[in-house]
């Protein structure tokens, strides 16, 4: 791997923890996921030793928390002008994009890791299928990665973090809801069936649920990997184009 990516990665990850952002984000993520699991998901009343009520809220948690994390990836650099400095350094835009992205992803992974008490809890209460839980965490991490890639691209378009946040939420919502009639009806009148099918197969929920069942399907991996690759590529393109402006 390009050593520049490692440098950017470390710098970014360190910067998260040197500001209150990291702590606020993690605290809110943990609080909300706990509250959702126990109160909305009725974890305890259900009496089933699995983490379904925990994972089922992740898409909705990420919908608001990940854009808040990703909005500053590029918009902040652009606003403060540090992007110019960054791009004059002897590193490629691609390395910078990947490094920053990986740092944000690693940070989300840390937040996700800190939910481990729920895993201990469910093992204390019963005998869950731990491989299904592991698959759930893996799917959740992949989904967070996809959310972040979208956020990274949109953050590269604008200087304004609030705009970046709102647009990211809307795009991610579309990706969650695609597969629901709300989005499909919009397309079905004027596009051929194969496109509509593809759009419906682009729903985060479908793929996340599939992995969460404990089956790692190559198609789900390809979906998340191609999505992440595409949005990161778009980020690079947009930064290059803006630089040319």
């Amino acid at each position, binding site marked *: 791997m390009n050593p520049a990516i490692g440098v950017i990665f470390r710098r970014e990850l360190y910067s998260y*923890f040197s500001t*209150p952002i*990291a*702590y606020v984000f*993690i*605290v809110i993520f*943990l609080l909300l996921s*706990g509250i959702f*699991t*126990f109160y909305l998901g009725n974890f*305890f009343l259900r*009496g*089933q*030793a*699995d983490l379904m009520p925990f994972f089922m809220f992740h898409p909705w948690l990420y919908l608001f928390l990940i854009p808040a994390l990703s909005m500053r990836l590029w918009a902040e650099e652009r606003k403060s002008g540090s992007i110019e400095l960054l791009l004059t350094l002897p590193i490629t835009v691609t390395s910078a994009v990947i490094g920053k992205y990986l740092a944000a992803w690693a940070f989300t992974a840390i937040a996700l890791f*800190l*939910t481990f*008490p*729920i895993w201990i*809890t469910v093992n*204390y*209460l*019963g*005998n*869950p*299928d731990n*491989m*299904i839980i*592991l*698959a759930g965490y893996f799917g959740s991490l992949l989904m967070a990665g996809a959310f972040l890639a979208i956020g990274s691209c949109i953050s590269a378009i604008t200087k304004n973090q609030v705009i970046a946040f709102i647009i990211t939420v809307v795009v991610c919502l579309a990706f969650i809801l695609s597969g*629901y*009639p709300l989005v*499909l009806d919009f397309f079905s009148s004027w596009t051929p069936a*194969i496109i*509509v099918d*593809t759009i419906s*197969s682009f*729903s985060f*929920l*479908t793929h996340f*649920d*599939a992995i969460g*069942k*404990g*089956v*790692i*399907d190559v*198609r789900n991996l*390809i*979906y998340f990997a*191609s*999505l992440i690759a*595409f949005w990161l*590529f*778009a980020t*690079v*393109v947009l930064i*290059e*184009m803006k630089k*040319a402006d």
Partner: protein
Amino acid sequence: MNKLLTSTGLIVGVVLLLAINIVSNASLKTARLDLTENRIYTLSQGSKNILQNLPEPVTLRLYLSEQLVRDFPAISTYALRVKELLHEYQRLAGDKLELQIIDPEPFSEAEDRAVGYGLQGVPIDASNTMFYFGLAGTNRIGEKEIITFFQPDKEESLEYDVTQLIYRLAHPKQKKIGIISTLPVQGETAMPALGRANTSAWVFMEQLKPLFDVQNLDKAVKEIPNDLAVLMLIHPKELTDQTWYAIDQFVLKGGRVLAFIDPFSEADRPDSSNPAAAAAHVRHSDLGPLAATWGVELVADKVVGDLKGAKQVQIERQGRAVVSPYPVWIDIDTSGFNTQDVITNGLDTVTFASVGSLSPKADAGTEFVPLIQSSTEAMLLEANQLLGLTDPQTLLKDFKGENQFTLAARISGQFKTAFPNGAPVSEEENAETPRDPSPEHVNQASEPVTVIVFADTDLLADQFWVRIQSFLGQRIAMPIAANGTLVTNAVDNLTGSNDLISVRNRGTFARPFTRVEDIRREAEQRFREQEQRLQAQLEETESKINQLQQQRQDAANLNLTPEQEQALEQFRQEQVNIRQELRQVQHQLQKDIDQLESRLKFLNIGLMPLLVGFGGLALGLYRGRRRRTFKQNVAQ
């Protein structure tokens, strides 16, 4: 500038993204890794064996309303799963299995055909548009089997349902099983004179009928037909020696027996309109003369009591409805099953009622393998205690559970006959003249044979394992325990189709909070002791109050002495206190569980955020101080 990094590049990217996903969705159907503990998403070996040995071709038609399914994301995912599973079936079966996926558009011929097969359409709006998601299978001789609608909540049994459908189509000739039963398992026809209405067949019977050719045999049968694959012996009481001999010979000639005997059959109710007959009514059954040669013994007149799996029953005590464990109605879960045996491995819960205890007889030379056992905290109770029992407390008073008992066993080996002198002579014939055994008489089995014995008949009764609901005039049985599956497993196993069994075993996936159940059980145990103690105290206090009242009346003096007055007041206060304590004890039962819940809520919602918050704060303060020190150092 690199040409790729322009808007053209972006368009190429979008196209590539779509193309990759369309291609991967269409072509990569089987590349997946099943991480689940029971490999629930991988076809089991049983299914594979059945598919690879299909004796004749089978056609499957999946009717799926593709246009409508998109409106239901939950079903849409499941539809994909069903389609893939069917493709997997086809891949394994090769030419023997033809798969058609048909979209029955509204008001089309395809829809008419789906309805003709008996598939169930679900109306989705007021316009009579129906949504179809079912399977119709046919074989070469035109027989059909259907799954009316794939319900997502039945996903666990999806593979079994489909494999069974294919198996039935491919093996149209059903295996014969014979039944000798003294219980009305086939239902009873109305006998208005006795005030009995028509009753339906028991649910386990209804489950066996589509799978096997069921033949009823009379209790006095003198010969068991050779073509029976399995003989089911249900509550064999008061059989004649001739019948026992027929069963004996049937087994020695390679027949298989599934026996349900009982030290006390709750389902065998005496005729209440005739008290004399009711008093003489026999409610127990055993294996008669065969027990000794098969090498299995039922402990007579004793039933197993087990507190660990005891069912909770509601009874009325002093005008109050209370819940109490009833130790002779037992739920046995996985811990009591023999996981090595295909019949019991993977079962969920089986409910027994007044079950007996089986033990091996060492000198019989047969192999005795326990299939189902009680917990290790069980004891034997006198069966006649159960007659007219109103309060389970009577059974609990001296309960000391410290043994484990076998409730069902598989017995195999080269059985010997229980009738070495040949067929027993019936009363009408002359018993004086000794006869030579008939040439067909067999003294010992030439090959190892297998019988399965259950020490309970009530496990077959509907009340212990299904809830019957009426739905649009149809009886729908919702199982609450796996008794039916257990019986079907046992028959299936004895008829030899072990492949289907290995599929069925993947059954249920309930993983309950065992810890919470333990706490509840412990609390009940404690609650019961305390309640008894308090109840006794209360009675004592009340009798003291009555005594004082009595004294007052005897003395014909309405005024009590101040000492008496004081004592009475004291007792009343005590009475109030004890009542309060009793209520508290009852609250306590739920309290432990509530406490655990709130503790876990705190640990999961509050603890980690607090730690992270404090950690961040501490780090911030430390950094701030270091910065200040650094500045001071610089200033100096």
